[in-house]
């Protein structure tokens, strides 16, 4: 990547400077060849939504969406599959509607980004030029950080299932094959990680299944965090009322090794034996962000962006949305769709030489099921303030107890957000 100091200062400045970059983009590269071209990497919650809204708000923009997978497999509701109350089919959806919106879908994987030439290189061998690039690759799971994980994973013994798909189906099979009286050991990565309430919802869903099918079984939750990282009241309430004595919670217990032959997870304190092991290692921004020089936080793990436009703080014309972004906003699918909308609106304005909305708003809701009939949620609205970033509005927060009405809304939320992303 080549980036001189002047460019760097231009993009790392606030609103006005970004708008300038936008004008420059238009005159330098789009005027010559007609329609501006936005390339989006990853058709998950963030990328697919961004593509849709770019076409809706900027019909003159050519949008290319690059994704290696044939189908969208949703992480939301994947815990319900593990609990046996939904199937893989329920969480698997096609991309067929996106081309009908005028989005060009390319089935490939990005293996390189040349930010000076504004080109992405594809595994298939070709290259695609862009005026603006949106990176929405989700997470890369740091399987190297837990000794033995890669071997156990390759042998099909231990999975993370923190990206929905084959691993979700395999983990469900392992749970089904487990005898009554068995032990399910699950680890929770230290924050920040994808979907803060996700591990605790998973514990509820597996417990709900055990309660019905194998009531003598146990769950040991090895948490890398000092405490339940999200919706503590909701989950404690569910564990105590629905599954008393079934879930053993151990805070500050990050695993450093796993043995898929002896079926042991090792923490600083203990070697924990189980019949089914579900180790979820720490995570970082998808590798394409590193290729673009955008995985730029102090640890080289997440991406820092101008949160009003989601443009990288170091690489001009490159935006990052979804789980890869470092901010005070939770890493959720719901939030990824909100990043996508703010980013799409900003790109439309920047490409037209106008100033992006100085006060964008993003909202989050994470519903979690606590049993096969009850759910709770955490919900917040965040409003951008110059110099402060996203500030949480009053009255945001979590439910203390799951209930049936929220379970119905949880299911409805999933149907609606899938339609919103892919419809």
């Amino acid at each position, binding site marked *: 990547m080549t980036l001189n100091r002047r460019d760097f200062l231009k993009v790392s400045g606030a609103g006005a400077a970004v708008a300038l970059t936008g004008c420059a983009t238009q005159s330098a590269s789009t005027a010559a060849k007609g329609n501006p071209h936005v390339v989006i990497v990853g058709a998950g919650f963030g990328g697919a939504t961004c593509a849709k*809204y770019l076409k*809706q*708000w900027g*019909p003159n923009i050519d949008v290319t969406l690059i994704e290696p997978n044939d189908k969208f497999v949703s992480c939301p509701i994947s815990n319900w599959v593990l609990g046996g109350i939904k199937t893989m089919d329920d969480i698997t959806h096609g991309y067929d509607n996106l081309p009908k919106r005028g989005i060009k879908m390319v089935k490939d994987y990005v293996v390189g980004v040349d930010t000076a030439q504004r080109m992405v290189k594809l595994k298939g061998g070709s290259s695609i030029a862009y005026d603006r690039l949106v990176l929405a690759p989700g997470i890369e799971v740091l399987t190297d950080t837990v000794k033995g994980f890669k071997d156990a994973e390759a042998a099909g013994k231990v999975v993370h299932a923190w990206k929905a798909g084959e691993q979700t189906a395999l983990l469900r099979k392992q749970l089904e094959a487990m005898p009554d009286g068995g032990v399910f050991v699950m680890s929770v990565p230290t924050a920040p990680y994808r979907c803060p309430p996700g591990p605790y919802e998973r514990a509820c869903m597996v417990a709900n299944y055990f309660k019905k099918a194998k009531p003598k079984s146990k769950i040991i939750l090895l948490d890398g965090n000092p405490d339940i990282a999200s919706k503590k009241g909701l989950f404690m309430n569910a564990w105590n009322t629905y599954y008393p004595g079934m879930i053993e919670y151990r805070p500050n217990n990050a695993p450093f090794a796993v043995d898929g032959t002896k079926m042991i997870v090792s923490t600083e304190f203990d070697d924990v034996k189980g019949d089914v092991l579900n180790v979820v290692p720490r995570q970082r921004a998808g590798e394409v962000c590193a290729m673009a020089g955008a995985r730029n936080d102090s640890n080289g793990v997440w991406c820092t962006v101008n949160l009003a436009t989601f443009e990288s703080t170091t690489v001009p014309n490159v935006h990052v949305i979804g789980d890869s972004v470092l901010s005070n906003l939770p890493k959720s699918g*719901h939030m990824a*769709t*909100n990043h996508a*909308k*703010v980013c799409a*609106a900003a790109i*439309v*304005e920047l490409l*037209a030489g*106008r*100033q*992006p*909305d*100085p*006060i*964008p*708003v*993003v*909202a989050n*809701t994470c519903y979690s099921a606590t049993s096969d009939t009850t759910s709770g*949620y955490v*919900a*917040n*609205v*965040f*409003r951008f303030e110059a110099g402060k970033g996203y500030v949480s*509005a*009053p*009255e*945001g*927060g979590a439910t203390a107890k799951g209930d049936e*009405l*929220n379970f*119905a*809304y949880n*299911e*409805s*939320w999933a*149907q*609606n*957000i899938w*339609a*919103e992303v892919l*419809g």
Partner: protein
Amino acid sequence: MTIKTIALSLAASAGFGLAGVASAADLHTQAISATCMSCHGPGGKSLGAIPSINGLDKDYFVKQMKDFKSGARQGTIMKRHAYGYTDAEFEAMGAYFATLK
């Protein structure tokens, strides 16, 4: 778009992005309305238990949002979301959702 809506959107969005957008509502209004669609479905049309909000009468819409905010109307979650937006934004969103079929 009525004069009143324009004035309110201006107040809500500090004059941002009124020109050149495909639809009558300004882009700030469309973008904040889009935050609702992650729950209420594309275009505000829900597929299930969450109510649809497309095509609602504007005055009814604004009253519901204000009532959610004040607590006059009870619900599971709308108070938390209503608190994130201004009265001027309720007006602008109400005008926009009323146009969605």
